[in-house]
């Protein structure tokens, strides 16, 4: 029974070691200070215990050198922890460029995942080792938080916005997925498993699944036609709406003089509430698609828009898009 008490969960990602390291060092620092203070308190209160009822303390009012010392010392330690913690934090924030993008939609009370090849899973996520994986996520209702204790990372999943996290699994196995932001009745039931496999196993697993699934990019392309986006957003020329080629990641000049970075959240807003930010040189003609596109379809649309490139004559899809997303089917980046 007691063997289940450990100090940390399995360390199964490239960054979990770094998080553990800073954690153990801070535990050590805390321990040192706690021991010093416990010792001081116990030692002094025993040594200077009251020996007769009328005894009073020696009037000592302070010592400026000591004050400076015990202000500066914690300050220096704090600076050190701050710098290190921030460094680790930035590593946790910034996915490597070659990461593969997975999608996640949270809703009360389940996790819906989608692989780059279109595979969908609920409350379970298969991932290969040895490759950085970025998960872009949003919520259909309230705030959730996708938490992988064994990868030492989590990020809140918000309605109306995209957030992301990344990890690179190192050790095959099954680990917990938790929802770490209270989201209502079944919050504690919004859990799942992440199944880390070797690239070969992962490939087999992908092959064994339903073959008719469509990649998010292909689905996005389909929607782009079905929702008649193409009538205004043509590949070659700007017709009524601006061309979307190469849009993602650029700064967009707005009609009111400002600029905005075209990230996932901006594209989403452009679809659901198009007139909130009007692109310079265009009229606010675009109709709203609020209520007409489901969250995962929105993600697919965005995934597709991300892949539209200026040079390409035809719209890339399928395997080509997969490759562009930095993912090859044999599991090597």
């Amino acid at each position, binding site marked *: 029974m007691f063997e289940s008490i450990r100090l940390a969960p399995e360390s199964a990602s490239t960054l979990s070691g770094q998080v553990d390291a800073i954690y153990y060092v801070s535990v050590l620092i805390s321990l040192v200070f706690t021991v010093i203070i416990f010792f001081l308190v116990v030692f002094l209160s025993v040594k200077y215990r009251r020996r007769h009822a009328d005894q009073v303390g020696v009037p000592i009012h302070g010592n400026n050198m000591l004050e400076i010392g015990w202000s500066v010392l914690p300050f220096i330690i704090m600076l050190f922890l701050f710098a290190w913690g921030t460094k680790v934090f930035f590593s946790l*924030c*910034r*996915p490597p460029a070659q990461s593969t993008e997975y999608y996640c939609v949270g809703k009360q009370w389940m996790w819906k995942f989608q692989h780059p090849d279109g595979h969908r899973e609920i409350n379970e996520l298969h991932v290969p080792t040895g490759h950085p994986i970025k998960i*872009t996520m949003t919520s259909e209702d309230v705030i959730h938080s996708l938490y992988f204790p064994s990868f030492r990372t989590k*990020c*809140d999943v*918000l309605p109306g*916005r*995209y*957030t*992301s996290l990344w990890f690179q699994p190192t050790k095959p196995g099954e680990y917990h997925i938790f929802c770490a932001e209270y989201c209502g009745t079944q919050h504690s039931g919004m859990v799942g498993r992440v199944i880390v496999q070797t690239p070969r196993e992962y490939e087999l697993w992908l092959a064994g699944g339903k073959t008719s699934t469509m990649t998010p990019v292909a689905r996005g392309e389909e929607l782009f036609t079905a929702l008649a986006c193409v009538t205004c957003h043509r590949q070659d020329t700007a017709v009524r709406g601006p061309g979307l080629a190469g849009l993602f*990641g650029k700064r967009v000049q707005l009609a009111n*003089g400002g600029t905005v*970075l075209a*990230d*996932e*959240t901006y594209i989403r807003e452009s679809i659901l509430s198009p007139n909130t930010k009007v692109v310079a040189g265009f009229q606010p003609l675009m109709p709203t698609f609020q209520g007409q596109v489901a969250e995962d379809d929105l993600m697919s649309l965005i995934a597709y828009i991300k892949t539209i490139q200026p040079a390409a004559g035809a719209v890339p899809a399928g395997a080509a898009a997969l490759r562009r997303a930095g993912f090859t089917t044999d599991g090597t980046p």
Partner: protein
Amino acid sequence: MSMHVSPIRNYVGVFVTLLALTLITVVVAFQDLGPLNTLVALGIAITKATIVILFFMHAKYSTRLTKLVIVSAFVWLLFLFVFTMSDFVTRGMMGVSGK
């Protein structure tokens, strides 16, 4: 603290200034000054508020403590505005969604 009684002339002067500033702010609002519009409107509002505080509310004649109390309120308001906006303004600067 002995009380301070301002002459009526002062109050009327303040009153006229406030009316004039109101007029200016309305007129300026119809001019297109680009981003300056907001700045001017806010500048005038702050001026008006300062005048009211100093003269109608006698802050000019109050103790240093009272002045400190007034100033601290606005400093704390700035804490709220500046630190909250520091989040929204820097969002997306890293180029990773949600960071």
